[in-house]
């Protein structure tokens, strides 16, 4: 029986691709003939390990109820599954049995609902939300309290949020320009009703399967306009102002307008415009704006006119910003319509590309030579770079001078690799522990994480890499056991960058039990400080939870390209230089013979393309 099934699956799965041999488009390694479904196994596994936008990292505090526990509280719903958690609760996918409608059930942390000011805030938020009926805003169907648990039943948005999208990969300016007007439209609608979102951030901007925007979580909405009714005025000027504080940070610091931090109660819709500016900035550059805001075009290649829009939205003074979010929408849409292609400026060598419009045979020859020259340069440069970078990186000692290779040759660029926290019991070699909750650069439940590290001379390029981690050792640690925790480095191709491990520290069961402050760190190089905290002796397992402080590696740099490669690099550089000069000479020679009319047409074309 088994074996028959195995036979079937075997012949079905393996026979059709026996003879395909190609290389992985991602890592370049040859894909073995028995690769699963034709995919490079190492890359498949790397993606499977993930670095986590969808890893379910747990933060301390509120533990969302299980699906079973919720089902008991909501008999009218079929709880389908857990979607995620945010600052204001947890969200589940559910089905309203009677209506046969899929909805999102948002429940608020039970702790919050003990707060006496909460009932009022909750009702207010819910009513404000319920007023907002707009395709760009997540609709609220119902709200209330069930078995002590505050909840909203909301429209279920089948998609993902902008945070996930940004974390998954960079988005193009073109896409940003498709998304922003939709956010503007939804916000303007809310502002017209006197409702300020107050917590615009990527997590609250959802995108459905068709790429349409839905703004969620007007959870901090505050009724600001008195025009809602004759009683409105007193409601505004008295009690509700303070409700927005209620001892919590209402809003997300990175996206919060300066006036919102200073005087939360005085905030108006222009705080949303500021937050939108931050989101826009992040979409364009992949980064949050610094204290001193650099124009987006200084960071990425985009149309400089976007700078003006973003920077004005980010003005510190509300009165200097756009006064209505619809203004942002109009400007962005205009810019998007004028330039339907990607909003990047023209390729860096416009004089060359513009010549594509000339028609003489001379220019055709010129074009051909230039094209071949540029292509050759590109290929050779690519090869050279590949030669220089390919698996040649090794990690220098974190203690400069100690083991430094005097023959080290510095590569003046930067690279990216992976930190991998490993752990063994040196006595037995047993690594059969669970290493969980490791936070390397952000919140992540897996034990490895990509990290950029600088390449270059220690003096100039080396910067410390700082990361924090905590982990749980489960079950296998007995009194007397000693667990060594190490950090290793991978390059992108999954090779160890260094054959040396960087010990982070060793913990023993005994030292741990005698209150973890005495735990010694194996190597002074890393971490420089380690603080033990938060120990649980959990009844479920015999292990313990060690939460370290930060590990810090100073002067991490990447060194050592073999001598032979250096020679090659010199040869290639010389070859490149001479090829470049040759092309320049050719261009000059041909350009002299281009008729004036062709030159004029070139410059006309230039001006057209520069729009």
């Amino acid at each position, binding site marked *: *029986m*088994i*074996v*028959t*099934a*195995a*036979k079937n699956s*075997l012949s079905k799965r*393996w026979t059709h691709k026996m003879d395909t041999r190609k290389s*992985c*488009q*991602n890592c370049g390694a040859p894909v*073995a*003939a*028995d690769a*699963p*479904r*034709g*995919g*490079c*196994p*190492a*890359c*498949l*596994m790397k*993606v*499977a*390990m*993930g670095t986590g936008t*969808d890893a379910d990292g*747990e933060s301390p505090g509120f533990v969302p*109820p*299980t*699906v*079973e*526990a919720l089902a008991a509280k909501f008999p009218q719903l079929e709880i389908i599954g*857990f979607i995620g958690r945010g600052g204001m609760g947890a969200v589940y996918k559910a089905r309203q049995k009677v209506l046969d409608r899929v909805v999102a059930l948002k429940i608020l942390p039970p702790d919050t609902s003990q707060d006496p000011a909460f009932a009022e805030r909750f009702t207010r938020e819910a009513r404000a939300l319920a007023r907002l009926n707009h395709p760009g805003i997540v609709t609220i169907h119902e709200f209330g309290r069930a078995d*002590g648990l505050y909840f909203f039943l909301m429209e279920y948005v089948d998609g*993902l949020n902008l945070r996930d*999208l940004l974390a*998954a*990969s960079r988005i193009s300016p073109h*896409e940003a320009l*498709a*998304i922003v007007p939709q956010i503007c439209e939804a916000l303007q609608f809310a502002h017209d009703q006197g409702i300020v979102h107050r917590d615009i951030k990527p997590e609250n901007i959802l*995108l*459905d399967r*068709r*790429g349409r925007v839905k703004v969620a979580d007007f959870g901090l909405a505050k009724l600001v306009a008195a025009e809602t009714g004759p009683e409105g005025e007193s409601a505004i000027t008295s009690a509700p102002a303070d409700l927005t504080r209620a001892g919590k940070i209402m809003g997300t610091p990175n996206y919060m307008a300066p006036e919102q931090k200073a005087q939360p109660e005085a905030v108006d819709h222009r705080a949303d415009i500021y937050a939108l500016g931050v989101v826009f900035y992040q979409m364009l550059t992949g980064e949050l704006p610094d204290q001193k805001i650099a124009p987006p075009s200084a960071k990425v290649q985009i149309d400089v006119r976007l700078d003006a829009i973003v920077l004005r939205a980010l003005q510190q003074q509300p009165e200097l910003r756009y006064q209505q979010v619809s203004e942002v929408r109009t400007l962005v849409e205009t810019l998007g319509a004028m330039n339907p292609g990607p909003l990047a400026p023209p390729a860096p060598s416009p004089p060359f590309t513009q010549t594509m419009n000339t028609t003489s045979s001379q220019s055709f020859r010129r074009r051909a030579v230039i094209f071949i020259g540029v292509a050759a340069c590109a290929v050779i440069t690519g090869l050279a770079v590949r030669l220089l970078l390919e698996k040649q990186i090794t990690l220098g000692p974190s203690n400069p001078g100690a083991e430094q290779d005097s023959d080290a040759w510095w590569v003046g660029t930067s690279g990216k690799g992976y930190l991998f926290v490993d752990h063994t019991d040196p006595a037995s070699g047993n690594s*059969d522990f*669970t*290493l*969980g909750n490791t936070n390397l650069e952000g919140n992540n*439940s*897996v*034990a490895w994480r990509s990290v950029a590290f600088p390449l270059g001379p220690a003096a100039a390029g080396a910067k410390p890499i700082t990361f924090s981690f905590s982990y749980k050792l*489960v*079950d296998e640690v007995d009194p007397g056991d000693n667990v060594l925790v190490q950090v290793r480095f991978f390059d*992108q191709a*999954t090779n160890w960058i260094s054959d040396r491990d960087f010990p982070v520290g060793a913990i023993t069961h005994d030292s741990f039990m005698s209150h973890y402050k005495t735990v010694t760190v194996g190597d002074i190089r890393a971490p420089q400080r380690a603080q033990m905290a938060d120990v649980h002796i959990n009844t479920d397992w015999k292990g313990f939870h060690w939460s370290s402080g930060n590990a810090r590696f100073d002067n991490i740099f990447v060194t050592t390209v073999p001598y032979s490669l250096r020679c090659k690099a010199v040869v290639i550089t010389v070859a490149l230089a001479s090829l470049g000069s040759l092309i320049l000479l050719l261009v000059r020679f041909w350009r002299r013979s281009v008729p004036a009319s062709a030159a004029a047409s070139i410059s006309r074309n230039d001006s057209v393309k520069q729009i």
Partner: protein
Amino acid sequence: MVSKHPDSSARPTHGAVFATTHWSVVLAAGQADSTSAQGALAHLCQIYWYPLYAYARRCGHSPHDAQDLTQEFFARLLEGNWVAKADQQRGRFRSFLLTAMKRFMINEWKKEHVQRRGGNQPVLSLNALSEDSAEHRYQLEPAEKDTPESLYERGWALSLLDSVLLQLEQEYAREGKTEWMEAMRPALTAGRDAIRHAEIAATLGMTETAARVAVHRLRKQYRRLIRLEVAHTVAKPEEVDDEMRHLFQALAGS
């Protein structure tokens, strides 16, 4: 001032879910020869038999003997109660299977083999494994530098990936989205910034943002399935991450 909410759900949900993974069911069943445990074990064997075949081959057995051996091993495994002898505290299916196979090869197989050649009918059909494809696949394995063990580990990881990808394909096919799966397949091996969303969008006739959403969902689902599949082979939920790393290392450089 605020007391902790006395919710019975203080523990994360995966504990409950985990109780039904295959290997944990098998382990929980222990000596009791329950049907669900048999089914769970059968399911596992179906996915992971090839690595054992490769192991036997690399240990020096001929294709015919290796087929015999693997088959006999599974027959004995499924009818016997070897599982009861597995260290229920920490065992993983991967290690259990290899250890059991080693024991079997040393102690039991020889005499069994001789007996069976005497004319006894094998429990399972011999044709099943004599299909050339197993041997064909074995011939494609990396050259001799691999030990039988490392070959087993690698074959294990490949079988697991294959099984997960097949499930993923079937899920998409059920929704009539085979075309989506095919268009997005490169996104399962690509680094984050190397995914060609525009290309996928063009192929599937959707906006780029919609393609991003689709790719994100695919990758998320893929990760979920692979964690689930790994969970099927370990005894405790805490072991999943570690087993994932083990697989990662087994495949690095393959």
